[in-house]
């Protein structure tokens, strides 16, 4: 590792990754199907990320998706996100915008290129063709849009509510739906309503798309969750079983839904940061990262180098924290009781460092628009150095205790395996994708915040089974230690917050000197910054996969639409595929190895 230390990191050399767009994608598409009318987005919409974005008439959707998914050379094989926007109260409307917009964010791994397709819908005709046939993971995204906006996807196999309870009335992300309790009637639960709610809890397999028996067997239905020791949060899986073998399963999410996206529309750009911490609650500042990057991109703020390196360092610390917890709970799910306790001691040491930096432990909310909240404390380097020298020896012990344990291997090798193409089809990102041998890490493929200047490897597995998913994470921790060491040796001097009026809180040093600083400072602190109208998607390689914030600003103190694309949401959707034919015990090992956080799924 001494090699790393000698290497000088200089973020001045760092370049932000640019999406390759040499051959305009629109030409490529129309060359295949000349009837497709792709209208580029207008300047009013001000899309500041470099993703090529187009408007499309809704009746052409299936034809375009056919081209994108199957007919293009190097097709768009990965459905990154599908979301909708209620445009009814938007001031800065582009010419194509009507009442609702459905936005498809697709990615081609081979091209390393994204594309954004937007469909405008009127409030009277909220119907659109489903794209489930093209991407398997579109299923849940479309259900979520129906749930949140009431947009109907025709030909969808199972269009029901996904996050809200089935008895819920209305669609919460509509602008007409109140965002504050004070805007609503007081909550009551009269007896008749209670009866309806109780009725709705009755389990009927047919409603879940499951059969009670086939010609040989009567199936048993096991309700795993929402409270079960191994579902890691409030998560329910309905299992259709033949003895102990799982015939089919239906994951049921939404128990942890807190309306984080809706809150984004009611919080100032600055005061939303603590909410992001609680999306993947094991990721800490990692959650702040894509959010502040997105706001900075919209506002045109350049973050100083020292802040960038500190951001990387603390994010990698949280990667270790999250992976250590995964490591321990994975072993515990298989029945090894002890590793988790040893790992908690390591986490405790690391949390002490985080606490020294930020004053908080799991949810520091420490990143700020334009930088970070405070500079590193005196003597920070000793704390970090001690830890990075301490952890590798502990990882060696765990290697023997967990990874080389033959019982753990017996339980996890070849269990819950999927191939790279299945992973892409289902939208798996992060360690779950790399465990299949497909080396795709946002930090390497699309470096952000100066990651291109760091020297680290991307660990991969080859089988894509539970064991490999654990293996990849364990190796990632060692790479994170490498990155932290490089941060330690090459920490640049300088400010930790950009000099820009829209940083939060803005620089105060000259407020008592001239009135032109005092007024913007006063306004930006009391109202919060007004971020220029525009649209952006920013993603990071978070602990569990790719986490992205899609922000739309309407030139206001609050976001017009905050869309959070989380990795765990996609991962859980894959569960039925993984669990068919497994024993219950295998399912528990698989659940452990997927490493999801329910807050990350439900938001």
């Amino acid at each position, binding site marked *: 590792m001494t090699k790393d230390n000698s290497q000088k990191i200089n973020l001045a050399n760092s370049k932000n990754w640019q999406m390759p767009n040499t051959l305009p994608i629109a030409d490529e598409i129309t060359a295949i199907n000349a009837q497709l009318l792709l209208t580029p987005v207008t300047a009013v919409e001000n899309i500041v990320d470099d993703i090529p974005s187009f408007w499309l008439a809704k009746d052409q959707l299936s034809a375009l998706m056919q081209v994108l998914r199957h007919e293009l050379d190097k097709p768009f094989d990965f459905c990154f996100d599908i979301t909708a926007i209620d445009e009814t109260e938007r001031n800065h409307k582009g010419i194509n915008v009507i009442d609702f917009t459905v936005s498809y964010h697709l990615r081609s791994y081979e091209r390393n290129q994204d594309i954004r397709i937007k469909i405008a819908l009127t409030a009277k005709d909220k119907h659109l063709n489903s794209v489930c046939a093209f991407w398997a993971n579109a299923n849940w995204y479309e259900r979520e849009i129906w749930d949140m906006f009431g947009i109907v996807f025709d030909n969808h196999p199972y269009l029901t509510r996904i996050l809200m309870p089935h008895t819920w009335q209305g669609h919460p992300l509509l602008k007409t739906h109140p965002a504050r309790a004070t805007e609503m009637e007081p909550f009551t639960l009269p007896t008749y309503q209670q009866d309806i709610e109780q009725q709705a809890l009755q389990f009927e397999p047919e409603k879940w798309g499951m059969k009670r028996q086939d010609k040989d067997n009567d199936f048993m239905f*096991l309700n795993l969750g929402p409270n079960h020791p191994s579902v890691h949060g409030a998560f329910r899986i309905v299992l259709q079983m033949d003895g102990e073998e799982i015939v089919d399963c239906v994951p049921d999410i939404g128990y942890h839904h807190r309306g984080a996206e809706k809150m984004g529309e009611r919080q100032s750009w600055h005061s939303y940061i603590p909410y992001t911490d609680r999306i993947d609650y094991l990721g800490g500042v990692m959650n702040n990262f894509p959010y502040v990057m997105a706001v900075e991109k919209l506002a045109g703020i350049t973050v100083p180098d020292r802040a960038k390196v500190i951001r990387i360092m603390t994010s990698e610390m949280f990667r270790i924290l999250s992976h250590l917890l995964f490591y321990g709970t994975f072993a515990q799910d298989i*029945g090894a009781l002890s590793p988790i*306790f040893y790992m908690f*001691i390591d986490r405790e040491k690391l949390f002490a460092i985080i606490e020294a930096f930020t004053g908080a432990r799991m949810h520091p909310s420490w990143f700020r628009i334009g930088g970070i909240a405070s500079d590193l404390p005196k003597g920070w380097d000793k704390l970090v150095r001690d830890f990075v020298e301490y952890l590798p020896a502990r990882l060696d012990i765990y290697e023997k205790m967990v990874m080389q344990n033959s*019982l753990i291997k017996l*339980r996890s090798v070849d269990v819950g395996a999927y191939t790279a193409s299945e992973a892409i089809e289902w939208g798996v990102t992060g360690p779950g994708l790399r465990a299949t041998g497909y080396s795709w890490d946002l930090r390497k493929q699309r470096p952000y915040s100066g990651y291109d200047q760091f020297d680290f490897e991307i660990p991969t597995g080859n089988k894509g089974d539970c064991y490999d998913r654990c293996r990849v994470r364990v190796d990632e921790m060692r790479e994170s230690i490498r990155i932290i060491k490089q941060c330690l040796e090459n920490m640049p001097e300088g400010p930790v917050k950009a000099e820009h009026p829209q940083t939060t809180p803005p620089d105060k040093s000259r407020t008592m000197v001239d009135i032109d600083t005092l007024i913007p400072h006063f306004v930006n602190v009391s109202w919060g910054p007004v971020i220029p109208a525009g649209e952006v998607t920013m993603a990071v390689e978070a602990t569990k996969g790719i986490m992205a914030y899609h922000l739309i600003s309407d030139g206001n103190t609050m976001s017009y639409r905050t869309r959070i694309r989380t990795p765990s949401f996609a991962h859980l959707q894959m569960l039925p595929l993984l669990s068919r034919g497994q024993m219950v015990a295998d399912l528990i090992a698989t659940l452990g190895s997927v490493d999801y956080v329910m807050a990350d799924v439900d938001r």
Partner: protein
Amino acid sequence: MLEVIWKLIEMTIIIALLIPIAAMLVWVERRMIGIWQDRLGPNRVGPFGILQSMADLLKVLGKEDWIPPFSDKVVFVLAPVIAAVTVLMSFAVVPFTPTIGVSDLNIGLLFFLAMTSLAVYGVVLAGWASNSKYALLGGMRAAAQTVSYEVFMGLSVMGVVLLTGSFNLREIVLAQQDGWLIQTQFLGFFVFLIAGIAESHRLPFDLPEAETELTAGFHTEYSGLKFALFFLGEYLSVTLISTMSVTLFFGGWLMPEPLASWLPPLVWFILKVAFFVMFFILLRTSLPRPRFDQLLSFGWLVMLPLALFNLLATAALRLAGII
């Protein structure tokens, strides 16, 4: 008459000691596991937390004695009693010292095997009577696991019977005066120990109650005193398997000279048993659990051949007069 009264007193004393010992074991285990896992474990109630089990007992006694309305009530109540009583019964044939021991049954070993076989009813009936799916799965696992491992347990001790020519446990101990049976019966001991762990369903063979899979398995619906009886049964059976290992393979109270004269036989016996109990506890902290089908195939494909081989080899060597 006096003899009968004396026997009754002896039985009462043994039971009166065994139950607190099992309760203490809960504390010993939690504290030991705590120390092994770099934590403290329960250390607040009394000196070193030694009264933790008392506190637990008081709490359990204070709990509502709840019987789920959907359960089969009679069987539901009966199951924990079976689980605890069958294990307690087994202690009747254990020779603790040259003079202490409830009964010198001449089929002592068979009685022990019979009682462990009966103990499975407690678990299976609990799983069945709870009328809950998790409990049922746990009970099902327990039935399959215990019934298979019983076979190997029975076979593994046959070597001992061959060598000592007796089913009477006291005679088996006495036959080890010239050397403990572990010298020749190490394979038998290995199979016996593993089968014993499986019979007492402790980690790594705790599949009937695997909490990460089946929440609490067969005792999911149990609480209060009835749960405590299962708990007691489990710790008693840890003690029982340790006791039997010592009796059958490690010379019971016997120790070679000069060690034997240092401490009374009873103390040696307790020390040996404590050693195995600790081994059980350590095992729990260090191993994950296999899957249900893996456990069964391990039993039938590895343990059964081993046990049979041990029996044949012992018989052959015995016939040849080598041992």
